[in-house]
């Protein structure tokens, strides 16, 4: 159990990034947030291995390397594969979900329309991971 988690938030839409950050702030969390605009950037951060996140949150639709492609790369790495990855997306597409779970995800969150609903969901996710034990390298 960790009081302070570090999240790698992979998202190309800056408002989404703001939403996440504001949500955490509003919820009073002080977790560390690493930001990446797409899968490539995220991999670059992860490959440095200076600071590995406890949880990865990622969107599916992104330019360059999209969410699923990133997941594939991630799951091929013998260490990084153990970092829980949670999809946060607007897509409730069955195929997307199926693919994601096949590759191995820790959760699939659909972004609600209302900001207030979003905050509620984020709160639950963060709470959940706060009570979880994660592997530390």
């Amino acid at each position: 159990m960790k009081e302070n988690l570090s999240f790698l938030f992979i998202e190309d839409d800056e408002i989404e990034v703001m939403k996440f950050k504001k949500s955490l702030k509003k919820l009073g969390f002080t977790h560390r947030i690493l930001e990446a605009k797409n899968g490539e950037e995220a991999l670059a951060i992860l490959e440095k291995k200076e600071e590995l996140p406890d949880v990865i949150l990622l969107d599916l639709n992104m330019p360059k390397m999209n969410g699923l492609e990133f997941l594939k790369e991630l799951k091929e790495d013998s260490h990084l594969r153990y970092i829980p990855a949670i999809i946060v997306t607007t897509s409730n597409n069955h195929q997307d979900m199926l693919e994601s779970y096949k590759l191995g995800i820790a959760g699939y969150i659909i972004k609600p329309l209302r900001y207030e609903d979003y905050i509620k969901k984020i709160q639950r996710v963060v709470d959940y991971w706060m009570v979880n034990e994660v592997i530390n390298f």
Partner: protein
Amino acid sequence: MKDKIQALELALQNEKRAREKAEELLLNRTSELLEVREALKVKTNEYNIFFENILDSFIVMDTMGNVIKMNEAAVKLFGYDIEKEKFNVVNIIYKEDFEYAMNSFAKLIEDGSFPNYEARVYTKNKEVKWVQINSSLIYDEEGKIIAAQGIVRDITEAKKNEVNFEEQREQLEAIVDNSTFGIVLAQDRKIIKTNNAFQKLIKYTEEELLGKSVESLSFEDAHEESKKLYAQMLNREIDHYSLKERYLRKDGTSFLSKTSVTSVRNQQGEVKYQLAFIEDISTKYKRRLMLNTLNNLTRSFIGKLNIHDIAWEIANVIAHELEFEDCVVYLVNKEKKLLEQIAGYGAKVNAKKEIVNKLYIPLGKGIVGNVALTGKAELIRDTSKDVRYVVDDKRRLSEITVPIIINKEVVGIIDSEHSSKDFFTQEHLRLLRNVANLVSIQLTNASNLERRIAAESENEELLENLKRSNKELRDFAHIVSHDLKSPLRSINALISWFQEDYEHVLDDDAIETFDKLNNKLEQMDALIDGILRYSSVNDQNILNVQKVDIVEVLDEIKTILYVPEHIQLIYSKDLPIIKADKTRIKQLFQNLISNAINYIDKEAGRIEIKCRELKHYWKFSVSDNGVGIAEAYHDKIFKIFQTLDKKGKSTGIGLSIVKKIIELYKGEIHLESEEGKGTTFFFKLKK
């Protein structure tokens, strides 16, 4: 006296001398006679010995025909015995042979002998016997005919055999003459006898053929071979051979034959005669040739789908195999009303397989043009008597023209000409008609095939397009889901932040405006979701066949949907378990029920779900006591984006999804409604 005595003595002496001389003469004579007599005696004895020792009958008769002597054999033969009765040969002559007998007898008298008299006689017991008699005359000392003698042989059996042989010969001749085979008997390859069939075949008379050499009648082609075989026959290597030869008739025509030659050898084994059997196989050969041609054409047509390729095959195969001088295939050009030469054989074609001086014949012109118009095949025996004839590369005297007809329309012409009159036969005509039919079938098949291939590729293309558009639609939906939904979420977040940041300055109007803005966002979001669901109804990737308990589905819907308290959702626990995709079934009921909920205007709302089992379908009904739907809209409501309620939350997608799901299960939907009272949707799902 003395003189007288002397004279008398002398006379006496003379007389005595003369007498002595006469006596001597007489003596001599008598002794001669005795000798003759003796000889005759000996001869008679010899005869007797001869008589008794010969097996053949022997008779001696006087000039009147009375038998004066006969041996045992003669008695046996004739049944008469002269020792017991009179026997005159004249009495036993067979009636019909009487004249011959008399003539023969006259000849015997004249010549002194008559050999090989053959005639019939009656025996004593009235039997008719064939006898052969060799006779001669017997003369007395003076050379006077005293008797006739004859050796009689009984040839009755031999005659019988001879008759049989004659009959057999006749029979054999009948066979030979009536044989359908030509039969030729030759000696040293020169004809010595022929039968009717051969004479008919070759159109020469028997006399004309006599002495002709066998080779002079046949074409040179096979001479070498026949010479070789004949040599082998002479060398006793073979007794029999057969070969195909073409014979030349007197009238200049010819026929193909199969000739079988057999040797007839003498006792030394040398070839005495050659016996040849000649069979006219030209008809047989022709028939086979035609059949072969047709077969070859059929074979060569395989895989050829256009008339040009087929035309070349026709021209080549026909001309080559049927020994036509030329063959040209024309194609009808309907627009220009022309016949175009598209393939040929013979003088019309150069080494590069191109038509020389390609001819274009207007429809109706010439024989070809005529046939193209009438569609009726023609066989012109003599083109010089046909005014329609058009000279192409050169004038030829006979022509055969056959149309190729597809769907009652002349599409082409097969045409051949020949330099001699009367070259083409009815068989040729029949064959060409068959070929034309074959072409017609082949081309019809080909165009059908082409059409089918085109249709198939079109279908494939359509299917491919459909697949592509389905995928595009899915991808589109995917993009929509992110790219359209994301901004809605951002807008909502931005509004929220704005509201938070300016909470203290915003008045009620502003707050209401923001609420309306948010409602619109929600509508937009619902619409996007609707489109997404609609687009995924047919997605085979997520179509399961599972047992779906309708009661369970409705129970779940109750928990998902917001059902106001004044509305009752009524369904029996007896609703069936059906086989389908649960998500779809749920979508189906959810849409119908939420639709009903939306339009219930009564204080006590009722939504009832029922089911009836049909043979092949489940028939469900969802009824409500809502506002009802005017009949004018009964069709319209199932169309996408059609909504009867402009201001509400309705997206106009729900019933489209319903219809699409029902169609997925090969069912149908209709509704009964009374405005103000309510609506019932009926739908069937295939079991």
